[in-house]
């Protein structure tokens, strides 16, 4: 089972010079179907390895697909496809002349993401990371007023992050002489004591933390996401940080072994506290925002804290929660950003003031937004609840009550955040109530966005609930299969 997915999409990207959306959609559909196929294949037959160029792994590059990354592949492809379908019109609106270039970049970004997830080679991961980053820079850089500056900051942070990662890989290569993840993992245990290994680990993690905007190196994210064009934000916001978290999981568990990562390093505890800080700060800063997308961006910062913290709890529940949250958060971020994109498409602004009375004008988009919001708050049966459940039970198991408190705190703050928006959209402008309770609702046009933007959004919103309902299966049948046995 080769990773046809990526190639179909890539090639679509190049053929696509003829300004066609259809090719992109087709390519991503292909990617989605093949990754779903891959997932089911992996689930029944166990991990798959694909040798590119036909060379055996330590010498050539290999793709290594286990249930975990097959799952993430499905998520990526699905998110990309839905967002693509849902934003067709806003793309046409925002980049009337550069649609071809936009879709090419879009597909290349997805290719990069798919590759990062599936590759089994530490250096290949870097190259793919850069593809995703460069296309990401370009997509974000086309946004409104402050976007170029924000993007430049993103480039600086991103480059430092990627370089750190590269440095970490260099250290690993220096000390092991290998670049293949499995090979490194086999060699490393003999030399855990070396300081070089330690620094290699620190560099890899530091680089990935920068890329995923983990507090306190989250500075680039809010502006970059807030000013990005909606179509790009809907793609990049759900994927970048989550895929980076996945890369972290992969490096920490499958290159370095869990016993090294969690026992020898002894950085789990401080990192969980950093995650607590990320969650708290992300939530508080989100509270201070007066712009929808910016607020959502800070919520993402907090969500990254969830995942990183959950992972570094180092027990099975915590890690399952973190991985489940990768999937769930991708879905819910997609929903809220797509909804925000729809609002932006109609309202031409996303400050809170512009949202007045939006429920009446765009009930369907707002309904989807509410579902996404509920999921982020963590209300059952949406998926956000279940990943939070695992995270919290992991934290209780690890005796880390600070993390529990932070999660609950952020749920409450999220509730405040989203209900503030919902209130504005629902109540304002106030109806003039007369004494007898006769209300004349303000007559405003029903201005819902076109069907082509609504249907993908609704599908995404529905998937939140489906993911929630099936999260048990997801955890027991997919995630637990993939986690190394040492983690209890």
């Amino acid at each position, binding site marked *: 089972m080769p990773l046809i997915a990526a190639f179909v999409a890539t090639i679509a990207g190049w053929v696509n010079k003829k300004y066609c959306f259809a090719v992109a959609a087709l390519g991503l559909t292909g990617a989605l179907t093949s990754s779903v196929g891959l997932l089911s294949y992996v689930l029944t037959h166990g991990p798959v390895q694909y040798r590119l160029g036909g060379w055996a792994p330590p010498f050539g590059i290999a793709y290594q697909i286990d249930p975990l990354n097959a799952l993430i592949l499905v998520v990526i492809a699905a998110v990309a496809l839905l967002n693509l379908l849902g934003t067709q019109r806003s793309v046409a609106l925002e980049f009337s002349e550069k649609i071809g270039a936009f879709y090419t970049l879009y597909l290349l970004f997805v290719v990069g993401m798919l590759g990062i997830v599936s590759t089994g080679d530490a250096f290949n991961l870097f190259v793919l990371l850069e593809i995703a980053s460069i296309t990401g820079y370009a997509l974000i850089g086309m946004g409104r007023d402050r976007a170029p500056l924000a993007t430049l900051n993103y480039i600086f942070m991103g480059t430092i992050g990627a370089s750190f990662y590269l440095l970490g890989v260099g250290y690993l290569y220096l000390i092991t002489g290998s670049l293949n993840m499995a090979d490194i993992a086999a060699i490393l245990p003999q030399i855990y004591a070396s300081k070089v290994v330690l620094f290699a680990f620190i560099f890899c993690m530091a680089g990935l933390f920068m890329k995923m905007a983990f507090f306190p190196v989250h500075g680039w994210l809010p502006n970059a996401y807030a000013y990005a064009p909606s179509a790009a934000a809907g793609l990049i916001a759900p994927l970048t940080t989550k895929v980076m978290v996945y890369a972290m999981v992969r490096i920490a568990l499958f290159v370095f072994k869990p016993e090294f990562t969690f026992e020898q390093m002894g950085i789990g505890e401080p990192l969980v506290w950093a995650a607590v800080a990320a969650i708290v700060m992300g939530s508080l800063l989100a509270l201070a925002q007066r712009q929808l997308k910016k607020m959502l961006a800070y919520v993402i910062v907090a969500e990254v804290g969830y995942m990183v913290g959950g992972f570094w709890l180092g027990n099975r529940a915590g890690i399952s929660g973190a991985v489940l949250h990768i999937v769930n958060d991708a879905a819910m971020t997609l929903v809220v950003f797509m909804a925000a994109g729809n609002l932006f498409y109609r309202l031409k602004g996303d400050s809170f003031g512009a949202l007045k009375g939006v429920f009446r004008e765009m009930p369907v988009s707002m309904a989807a937004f509410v579902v996404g919001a509920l999921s982020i708050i963590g209300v059952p049966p949406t998926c956000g609840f279940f990943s939070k459940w695992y995270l919290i039970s992991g934290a209780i198991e690890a005796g880390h009550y600070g993390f529990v408190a932070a999660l609950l705190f952020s749920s409450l703050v999220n509730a405040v955040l989203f209900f503030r928006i919902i209130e504005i959209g629902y109540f304002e402008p106030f109806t003039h109530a007369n004494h007898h309770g006769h209300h004349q609702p303000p007559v405003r046009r029903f201005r819902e966005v076109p069907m082509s933007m609504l249907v993908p959004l609704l599908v995404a919103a529905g998937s939140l609930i489906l993911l929630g309902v099936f*999260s048990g299966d997801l955890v027991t049948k997919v995630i637990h299969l993939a986690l190394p046995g040492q983690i209890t």
Partner: protein
Amino acid sequence: MHTIFSIKPLIAVLISMLVTPVLVSSKNANIREGWTFTAAALKFAVVLSMLPAVLDHTVLECTLIEVMPGLAIKFRVDPMAMLFALVSSFLWIVTSAYSIGYMRGLDEHSQTRYFCFFALSLSATIGVAFAANLLTLYLFYELLSFATYPLVTHHQDKEARSSGRKYLFYIVGSSIGLALPAMLVTYHLTGTLEFSGQGFMAGAASKSTLAVLLFMFVFGFAKAGIMPFHSWLPAAMVAPTPVSALLHAVAVVKVGVFCILRVVTGVFGVQHLNVIGLGTPLAVVAAVTVITASLIALSQDGLKRRLAFSTIGQLSYIVLGAALLSPKGLIGSMVHIAMHAFGKITLFFCAGAIFVATGVKNISDMVGIGKRMPVTMTVFLIGALSVIGLPPCGGLISKWNLVLGTLEADQFPLLIVLLVSSILNAAYFLPIVYRAFFCTEEESQFENQVKEAPRWCLVPPVITACLSVVLFFYPQPFFNLARMAVRSMGFDV
């Protein structure tokens, strides 16, 4: 007692959920209301159809899906669930009728949205009733919170906004902040959340931990209105009256106390609580709420606000009954769910009817209204009697059992609390009726033109009032269910 699989509980939950798309798509008001009725009737029929089986000591179960290892979304119909489901699904029918009259009478806006969320709330209520474990319970509890939000804030004005804010702040805040962590800790300690007759917390943790958990649950389910988490209830009275009636006399608040009952009996286990002696503190909290709420109710002038505080007090009766941890007390508190529901909904219907007919909201403006709206006020009297606990109304039965419960548990102070509060109940209800009927022509604030409310608004309270009376003579259905429930907890009654 044996367990069988049945899909009926699921159907009962889903009916009202499935009817919402139909409601949204139906353009015509008559069709919409027709569907609402159909759904309500169907739902009641489904619930009723399960009754024989339950009375036959059968437990119906339906596992929907396993969301986490050992943790499923699961429905189970046992006597206690049956009791609550019967009450709420029956009252939905009545309230639907009343809503139609009320909403048409006042020509409210966004009626489609109103009926949709109404149906959704009922789904959630039945879901809570049939929940077989804490997770399912919590799921529907939250669903109910959010589904009722648009109902509470139906008017969409400034007042509704601030009340809605308060409503959500208390309810969601407490459930996420207290109930959810308590549930997680419980799961962590015991590895299960499944309700069982004896509870499953025995020996799982130290007494102090259990105490903390218990109070996290009790306050976390803020819908029960235990002080100090009660102030959302009066605030939520900005909602249209049918909403107040069904949700704040029946569904929402009763869901709250039902959750507490479930936690006390199904999670902690009555016997176990008795052993570690956690009943008394809970009873004290409830007792304080009973007395305070009654006193506050005395000072309220808004009829609905007075009813709201009365509700807070009455809810704490139920919690108090549970906290007695004695069979009679438990029976009393379960039956009180039903009795109070019928009584209180009658009162709210009357308040709504008065508002529809005259536009008056305050008690001080109601002098002499009895002469203009005799039927309404008579019905009001019956409801009040039921809530106070005087014959010939159902309220007496449950209160009687509560009193017996206090004696059984040797808690004389609580007995006094019950009696005092009954007197207070009488003190804040009876004057209204008295002044409505017995006043001189000059004092009367109403012209002759004032007529009874429309028929749709009048019939439902009459029905519920009649039922209140009927329940005094034939409390057997509810009584048997409660007794079966208590028996399953290991008591011999």
